[in-house]
């Protein structure tokens, strides 16, 4: 009643016909022809209901296998045809991937922070990582915090050197240095402590390529017990190594600032441009960091007993560092708001 060979033939002819199918409809027709209700497999299944148990046991699994095989082949064929169809339609679509933000005039594909912000953040992070708090203070300052308390009395010649913008009450001024934070910082904190204070400073000075009436400094201070000159140098060397990513040759030489004693100028060795020949550079020293051991009068003004504590302080010109780092030739760009300048430092 059941001829196993017949099933082989069915399989072979299905395979042959499937090969010839080129469209989805043909595949579906073929599917219904073989495993549809009136297809040979369904017919055989129906007949199997009335067959002997032995037949059921032998033929049943063969039929089921064949049916599953056909279903699987049909699905595979459908997948192949579908993929071919999708690929065909994809091939006909052409996407202009070159039409991007960057080529559009009306796009904002670039933006960025001010270069001074970049350097300021870098320095803040370096100091923060070494345990220095980051403080801020007022631009409009009184004479006391900017001068008096820093051991710069009214008749001191140092006041001439820091050309000061004064307000009409003759008591208030625009801070000439970030050192005004020294007193404020000391009063706010209990030793031991260390902090830096970056910010804008003001000098009544004609502007040119290297002079600005508004520029940026970073003040730093450490107060504790038994602080040495070597501790100051340690932090400065570490700072410079972090900024320039290499050990910098430095020298410490005497420098006079009323709020430190002893006071130093810290110079770094660099390749100076030769003023006569711009392409040439020669080795020289760049004055970078005035610093020193905090004057006992300044400590006392900050409410700290100079017999118990001492410390160091330093100041750094941020703009000069920005100029050295990026090779900027004119300090007046910084406050120009000119996007042609700022775009060169874009974050993306």
């Amino acid at each position, binding site marked *: 009643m059941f001829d196993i060979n017949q099933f082989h033939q069915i399989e072979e002819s299905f395979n042959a016909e499937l090969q010839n199918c080129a469209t989805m409809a043909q595949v579906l027709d073929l599917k219904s022809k073989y495993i549809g209700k009136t297809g040979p497999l369904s017919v055989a299944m129906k007949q199997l209901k009335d067959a002997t148990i032995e037949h059921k046991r032998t033929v049943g699994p063969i039929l089921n296998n064949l049916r599953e095989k056909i279903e699987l082949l049909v699905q595979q064929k459908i997948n192949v045809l579908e993929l071919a169809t999708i690929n065909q339609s994809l091939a006909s679509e052409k996407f202009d991937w070159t039409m991007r933000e960057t080529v559009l005039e009306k796009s904002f594909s670039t*933006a960025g922070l001010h270069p001074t912000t970049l350097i300021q953040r870098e320095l803040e992070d370096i100091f923060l990582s070494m345990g220095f708090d980051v403080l801020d203070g007022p631009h409009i300052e009184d004479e006391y915090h900017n001068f008096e308390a820093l051991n710069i009395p009214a*008749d001191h010649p140092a006041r001439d050197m820091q050309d000061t913008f004064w307000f009409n009450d003759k008591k208030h001024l625009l801070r000439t240095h970030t050192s005004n934070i020294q007193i404020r910082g000391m009063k706010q904190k209990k030793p031991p402590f260390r902090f830096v204070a970056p910010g804008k400073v003001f000098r009544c000075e004609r502007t040119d390529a290297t002079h600005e009436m508004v520029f940026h400094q970073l003040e730093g201070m450490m107060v504790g017990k038994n602080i040495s000159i070597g501790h100051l140098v340690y932090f400065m060397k570490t700072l410079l190594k972090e900024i320039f990513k290499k050990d910098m040759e430095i020298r410490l030489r005497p420098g006079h600032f009323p709020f430190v*004693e002893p006071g130093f100028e810290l110079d770094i060795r660099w390749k100076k441009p030769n003023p006569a020949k711009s392409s040439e550079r020669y080795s020289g020293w760049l004055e970078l960091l005035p610093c020193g051991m905090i004057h006992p009068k300044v400590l006392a003004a900050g409410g700290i007993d100079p017999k118990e504590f001492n410390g160091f302080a330093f100041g750094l010109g941020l703009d000069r560092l920005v100029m050295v780092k990026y090779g900027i030739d004119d300090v007046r760009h910084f406050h120009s708001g*000119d996007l042609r300048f700022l775009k060169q430092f874009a974050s993306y």
Partner: protein
Amino acid sequence: MIISLDWIKEFVTLPVDKDIHDFANALTMATAEVEEVHEANKILEKIIAVKIISFKSHPNAEKLRLVTFSDGVKQFEVVCGAPNVRVDLIVPYAPLGVTLPNGMKLEAKEIRGIWSQGMLCSATELGLGVDSSGLLELPVNTLIGTNLAQVYGHHGAQELLVIDNKSLTHRPDLWGMYGFAREFAAIYHTHLKPIVPFNWAAKIAENSNLPVLNVRVASSSQCTFFSLIQLSGWHNAPTPDWIKSRLESVGVRSLNLAVDITNYVMFELGIPLHAYDRSKVKGSIVVQALEQGVDFKTLDGVVRTLAPGDVLISDEQKPLVLAGIMGGEDCIVTESTQELLLEAAIWNAQDVRKTSTRLGLRSESSARFEKTLDPKSAQIAFSRALELFFKFCPKLQISAKPFLFADEKKLPARLVKLHLSYLYTVLGMQVSHEKIKNILYSLEFKISSELPDCWILEVPSFRAQKDITIEEDIIEELARMIGYDSLPISSPLTEILPLHLSKDKSFLRKSQDFFVYNAQAFEVMTYPLIGKDLLHKSAWVDDAQDLVLVNALSEEADRMRPSLIPSLLQTVAKNCKNITHFRLFEFGRIYSSVKNDFAKEAHHLALAFVSKWEHQLNSLYSTVETYFKFLHLPVMFHTQLGQKMKLPASLVSPAWTGLHPSETLYLESMGNIVGFVTTVHPYILRNFKLKSNVHIAVIDCSYLMPRGFENKTKFNPISLQPDSYFDCCIEVKKETYVQEIIELLWNVVQQDKLKEITKIKVLDDYFSGSHQQRFVTFRLTFESAQETITSERLKILENIVLDSLGKAGFFLRKS
């Protein structure tokens, strides 16, 4: 300040194995910054003065001549192109083998067929000046055959160091050669030749009837030391070359012997002295501060108006000397002077500084007196000058009783303690007692008592005025001589504590990043100073309370900015010339005067979206809305300010006409108006010649900064039920704000407690029929975490929504 090494070497022996660059470096590292090094012009020794005997035209070149000259022994011939060649002219000759300062080496060479033996030189070619127009013409009395180093004396052949005066402000002792000689002696551990006081008392004429100099030093003069001596029998003689050349090397012109001597002593010992022509001084002399102003002709021929308080030395008829600054023209010593008065005095530094600053008259003398000079040094300088006067004029006599005034109360010896343990702490290392003592002695400190840890030092008078007053000053002396570079470098031992950026700083940084990465804007910085013109241009109401500077550099920057807006508009206008489409922001301070404080500084943010083509207000508004979400702070936008809400004047004056009448939104956060977003009024834009769309936002960060970034996010379980949506398309008027409808719907949700409605958004905004009709499609999201919403419930919800819309006059689009 110029230092002559030749002069220095009179007092100290410098190491022979070191050159001028070593000396410059040593001074820079231990004492004061050397700005320039002038090496000796050694070439001059090889250049010979010759006399031109004859010349003729070069046979092969029109402009060249063959010049025959003599060095007194031999005759030479060279080819020369200089126009000023003439017979008997004495000129410098560079023989073969010499290398000129410009690097040119003279070799025998053929010029147009004639062999030339060396070269006749111009001043430039010898490094003696800038004149290159012709041969350097030497004086007619120049001895032929001598080298130019002899002809020019030391000038040009001297080794000089130029010191940065700023590094000498606290060191009056370094305003003379001797002070630097002392530094060199300390640096190189060599002997410093002492200045032996000249016994001038022996020169006082033996006559018991000597006249008395009638001098009165008033206390108003604040003079602490005044000595005056009368010298008779003076006759001018040529100043010796060595004095002349040394003065020239430090930039001082020789005038006459008496003046040259006082100048010489000033540059040697740092103390200004003054010589008067005795015959011009009438009657008694008084030293006092002026009570009323007077005109005074200083020796430079300028009439200056003196003010009360200026200290003056006068005789009975007229002012003689403006104390510490400059003498008068009337009593200057000339070549015919026969009787002199020599004065040494110590003036109050502040008085000198005040007067010289006011008059704009800075002299070598005032530069020194400003530093507070030492009376003892003045005595030494006085005796040194007398030594030179008597040396060059042995017949000189002291013809009156010398006048000496010294305020002894102001001359106490200064004692300073030095704790060795503190010294070692600051140095970071121990130093032998011997080394410490050697340094102190070489700088002329004395040790007056010596306990194990505490030494009491006597400061030499020339350092004791203002320079060295405390222990730290002594430590500086020791440290700089030990050498800062030899101190050990180490990290301090200190407690480690966690550390964060302050709230303000983090706020600033995160905000800057937001505007760069989210708003795609550039950060700008503008001047915190501003001028009236820009304020007017921006229609900013001029406030009488403005923080105005008294000494502004220009009218464009003479006051503190009351707002970021004017400079923002200016920056926008500047950039519009180059770019048509940009965004920028500034975090800056604005300044205002307040009642109890002189000034208040507030942190503001200003943001500008600028485009020639597009209206970007909504884009700016969305950015600001997102910014507040980013800050985790609530914000509401108002088109009108209600009764309760006031626009803070610090943000923008209510009278500012820059706000657009319909395109302005006020930001409310935590009960305050903290900012606004607006399209700048075209009328203001006109002032800036701006034709673009300019939208700005200003936010007062002072409310926001202290809040920090508090993220209060709490997790909500994710609904297991699928969301369902209800889309409804409603016809609205063109000028309707969608926000009105959204708010209306949310009100319904609240009133009817329709808690399943979780989102109300606009799906589409559509204009049809050439913009006569507008249709807005809203999508309402229904969700419930607990249970599936039944279709009956959905229907109910939808009907409530449509009903309430209908009641408000919004109907579904008729299909």
